[in-house]
């Protein structure tokens, strides 16, 4: 478990609707509860974290949520401004140039500059140091876009290196590429549900991240896992109550699917798969995130 959790940058992705935000938040809560200074990053998202972690909006400025736990919602405009200022140094120059309408059109046209500056900010925080020399954030968890967008998002450094001529932009992209592709620093945590299509997509996503973005996956989380409850004998015993029998049959089928998809993911990734049980907690807030974090920790311990 220690070895598995020692990566610095965690990219959490999967098919839309599988619970990426929940798992991202739970991972971040888990890291911080283990004593690591942790930054949770949303990527230009509709602020799900605010609901999940039970606080007001998380904006483009880093906010402290709890002991050792910070969050930020990366937004392209704010990230571009930060990036430009880090190079230009003077606010007045930035304003004169970047707040020009024509220039902003022009700039937006450079392939993926928005994504690049957001990715740049993520990498910056991974490398950021305290005055004492230690890393400012020991863990950075990215609630990344869903499958298709995740692949293009994390391939951007490679695409840019091939697109733009040598120069500052290409150099920035190269710097990011080195961090993303270092398996000692960066890893993907892929989230799936025990259903056919999310599982297929997770397997494809793992391969695409590996082949196109050169990012390795070290954790696969099967969310919404259903443990077996009814035996075949139980189902037979319910023959007199068809409606109950249907409910039990469905539960048994879901449990069987959970186990089968877990095996399939484990084979495809050659990794143990962490199962997080389906929750019936409403509304889905901080309490639920904490219990997912506990479930994650228990499952990770079981792996050893």
């Amino acid at each position, binding site marked *: 478990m220690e070895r598995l959790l020692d990566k610095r940058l965690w990219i959490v992705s999967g*098919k*839309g*609707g*599988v619970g990426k935000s929940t798992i991202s938040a739970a991972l971040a809560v888990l890291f911080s509860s283990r004593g690591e200074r942790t930054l949770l990053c949303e990527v230009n998202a*509709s602020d*799900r974290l605010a*609901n999940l972690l039970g606080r007001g909006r998380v904006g483009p400025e880093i906010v402290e949520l709890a002991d050792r736990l910070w969050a930020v919602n990366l937004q392209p405009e704010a990230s571009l401004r930060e990036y430009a200022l880090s*190079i*230009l140094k003077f606010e007045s120059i930035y304003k*004169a*140039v970047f707040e*020009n309408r*024509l*220039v902003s*059109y*022009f700039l*937006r*046209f*450079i*392939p*993926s500059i*928005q994504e690049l500056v957001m990715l740049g900010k993520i990498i910056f925080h991974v490398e950021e140091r305290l005055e004492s020399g230690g890393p400012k954030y020991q863990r950075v968890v990215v609630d990344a876009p*869903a*499958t*298709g967008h995740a692949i*293009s998002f994390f391939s*951007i450094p490679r*695409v840019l290196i*091939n*697109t*733009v*001529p*040598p*120069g*500052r*932009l*290409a150099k920035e992209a190269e710097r990011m590429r080195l961090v993303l592709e270092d398996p000692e620093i960066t890893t993907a945590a892929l989230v799936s549900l025990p*259903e*056919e*299509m999310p599982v*297929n*997509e997770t397997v494809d996503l793992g391969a695409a991240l590996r082949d196109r973005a050169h990012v390795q996956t070290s954790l696969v989380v099967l969310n919404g896992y259903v443990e077996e*409850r*009814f035996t075949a004998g*139980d189902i037979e*015993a*319910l023959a007199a*109550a068809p*409606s*109950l029998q249907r*409910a*039990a049959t*469905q*539960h048994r*089928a879901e449990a069987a*699917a959970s186990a089968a998809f877990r095996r399939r993911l484990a084979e495809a990734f050659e990794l143990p798969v962490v199962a997080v049980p389906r929750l*019936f907690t*409403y*509304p*889905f807030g901080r309490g639920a995130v904490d219990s997912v974090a506990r479930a994650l920790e228990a499952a990770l311990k079981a792996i050893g």
Partner: protein
Amino acid sequence: MSTAEANPSPDSPIAEAWAKRKVVVCVGAGGVGKTTIAASLALGAAVQQRSALVCTIDPARRLANSLGLKELGNAETRIAPSQLASAGLPPESPLFAMMLDMKRTWDEFIERHAPPNRRERILSNRFYRSLSSVLAGSQEYIAMEELWQLRTHRDYRLIVLDTPPAGHAKDFLDAPNRVLDFLDNDAAKWLLTPALTAGKFGLHLFGSGSGYIAKTLAKLTGAETLEQLADFMLAMSSMNESFRQRARQVRALLASEETAFVLVTTPQLERLQEAVEFHTELQQNHMHVAAVIVNQVTAAPSPRDFSDASVLQSPLREKVQRTLQENSALADEDAKAMAQLEANCRPTPLVSVPRMDQEVHDLKGLWKVTRALVAG
């Protein structure tokens, strides 16, 4: 499968869309089952012998999976009679499917609209080569370009367009404008004016009056990047009028009587706000919304279920009771969300699709969804 099921009652909003519309656009967030709904809508029309094409830009090939196709390409593919027959459906149902190939659609667009002497310059520019995969809004734009082409040059009775996941209607509706913004050559002209007026096509960004701005930008991007980009924009600028015209045509098609939108969502409370906003935006843009389709709704256990459970032997009793309680909790949450959705989307009808016993991954499953769509 009876004929009655293939000919649903005419007061179903979905049946009405089948009868009245030639284009149905499926919109909604990621992970709500949009592609499945799109394919089910096309299947329902095809089973009624209306030729139907479902067109997706889904890069994850889900649609191919569920239609029993190994691969789905840029070409329109007819679903084989044997496939339909093995799902118990009329084998001759004219059902077609295709997946958008972004790069190819862009290339075709350039070849149609760029002046011959600029074509190569555009197609070989480094920026163009990454354009189709990276330009914001270009997926949506190309989906609409393809829709327009299909609607104009093919005679499907119904085209169902599955769109990229979007949190807002404007992501989709404004895509042509955003692409136009990007291609608008004002910026390039302004930066390049001195070079252009000198009658030279070579770019001298840094000797010009706007040199200060250009130099500052170049600090971030590198000088050569700026020059290549300017060159690209200049080459593309000859096509602006084509883009503008197409944007108008697409907009007119979307707003016309022959087109309807369906907004797909799931009943989770956290999705609710998003769906309501999406619906409002569509209405504000004068788009016709045929239905809000709520997918994966959990049915509540009946009181009878609970009384039946109470007389079971332990431990089976506890197991069943726990399962019923879980299903109740899910159904309660879904019902609450549905009520709110209905109140906030009036007068658009809500159509609910129950959570299926089995995941939809083949034609049989799609057909179940189709029947649910017209039953609700």
